[in-house]
């Protein structure tokens, strides 16, 4: 009959209208700058450098091995290793820049890093006023703590922590069997001449 479709439609819009006041399914808007959807755990966009402990400079896991720089397809990573007074290379980056305007988030740097030093971040509000210099992230901006990593990717971070602890235990057992296994402190590890933990390739 004429009008039944109209009435059906009117009922639906009325249910939408009243439902929008009490039923979240009928008002799905998230008012973005004020409220945000929680990010899914697998969210990833640009890499950052993980540091252990509180000091972002000393705690960096990165040893300036340049593997990621060489492997990076768009070549957005630039590393200069630190040198001591005699000009000998220290296992620590002096400069570590990632140009996120060039980075394509392929995660190859993560895959090739033998030290679990570079990981993906979830930070996505990256619009800047400067087109070039503001999007070139330096070591200071890239260094983020392991706690932060545990927070954004808990499952993956737990895996990495376990692997590092295991490697550390193996290494201390080899060098000084008597010394008890302490907390995984990479500060001494990165500066010690001992071999780095075995390259951990995720399955």
């Amino acid at each position, binding site marked *: 009959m*004429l*009008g039944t479709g109209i009435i059906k439609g*009117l009922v639906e819009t009325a249910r*939408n*209208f009243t439902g*929008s006041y009490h039923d979240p399914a009928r008002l799905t808007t998230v008012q973005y700058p004020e409220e945000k959807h929680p990010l899914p755990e697998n969210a990833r966009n640009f890499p950052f450098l993980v540091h252990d402990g509180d000091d972002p400079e000393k705690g960096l896991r990165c040893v300036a091995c340049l593997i990621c720089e060489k492997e990076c397809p768009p070549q957005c990573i630039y590393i200069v290793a630190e040198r001591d007074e005699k000009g000998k290379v220290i296992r620590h980056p002096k400069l570590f820049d990632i140009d996120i305007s060039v980075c394509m988030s392929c995660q190859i740097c993560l895959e090739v890093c033998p030290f679990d030093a570079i990981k993906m971040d979830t930070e996505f509000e990256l619009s800047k006023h400067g087109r070039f210099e503001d999007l070139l992230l330096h070591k200071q901006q890239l260094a983020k703590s392991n706690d932060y990593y545990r927070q954004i990717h808990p499952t993956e971070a737990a895996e990495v922590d376990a692997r590092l602890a295991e490697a550390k235990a193996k290494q201390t057992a080899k060098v000084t069997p008597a010394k008890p296994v302490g907390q995984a402190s990479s500060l001494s590890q990165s500066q010690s001449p001992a071999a780095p933990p075995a390259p951990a390739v995720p399955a």
Partner: protein
Amino acid sequence: MTITADQLFVSLKHAIVGWFPMFAQPLVSILLSVSAILLTFGLLFAIATLLERKGLGRMQNRYGPNRVGPFGLLQPVADGLKMLVKEDIIPRHADRVVHFLAPIALLASVLLAYAVLPFGRNMAPADLDAGVLFFFAVGGATELAVFMAGWASHNKYSLLGAMRGVAQLISYEVPLVISSLAVVMMVGSLSLVKIVESQSDFHWGWLGACHVFTPWGLVGFILFMTAAAAESNRSPFDIPEGESEIIAGHMVEYSGFKYALFFLGEYLGMFAASGLAITLFLGGYNAPFSFLNWVPSWAWFFGKLFALLAVFIWLRGTLPRLRSDQLMNFAWKFLLPMTLLNIAIAGLWRYAAAWSLPGGAMTRWILCAAPLVAAYVWLGRALHPHIKPRTYRFAEA
């Protein structure tokens, strides 16, 4: 003279007019009425746009505007400012004079219609003996404004929109007038004040004697509202605008304040048509129930106006736009026969009152409602296109 809430504005106007010398009093009285109408309905326009955007938003599972001011309440102010500071563009090949006059002609003809609406007890700006006739006469001038706008813009879309608009407005003027004719017949007067007064008593001492509670009144009201939606270019009859096919029809070449005037004219036209529907069918400024008689009459008028506004918004949120041929079919093949039948039923209702029917009022109601329902079903069926499922002769379906 005691001042009651019901007569608040009337007393206020009398007091103000009383301060002026005798010879100036008619002029002051006119100016007061006009400025009151302009202010009230200008404000109502602002509120209506906000309510519409908020309501439509909720119907479409989203918040409406909620950024300007608390809860987005200042959105109309922002809209108005935006319209005012926009550049006023006149196309090079446009007829400048007519292009300029079109929005003014629309607004003027729409505003004139308010002259005869009774907004409250003793609150009709002009109690004309032929109020209904006057209303439709000035309402008919909006067609001219629409066509002026379309023609003067020198734009194909404008002209198409204007042609559509004129075709639609003229088609729907017919059922609009005929559906209100039933009320005029039953009341025996073209004066809107008399029509309201005829609905001022109460059935069984509590239910207001609105015409909408009779079979011909109910059907007439629905037909009137349908035609009024078309007259005020409201969805689902907004094909003159048709933003998805002809951008904005006759308003394509208008920008800034002139566009705002068109917008204002359309909304004011909708309020005026709603006001007429209230006056003719919903008992005007009378309370619908006797125990609510203490509420001031003007509050009833504007309350009913907001209710009809909500219905218009609801319909706009629900229905898609009609096609041109569907629109014409609906007007001439459905609305017109229904309105003509409704006049006959009004006559039947009038004479059935004198008959001694078994069952009394109930039988009278059913007797009058049955032909209307039958006609509705039959005409509604005839309106369907009768397209059978396609059969394929040479290919597998």
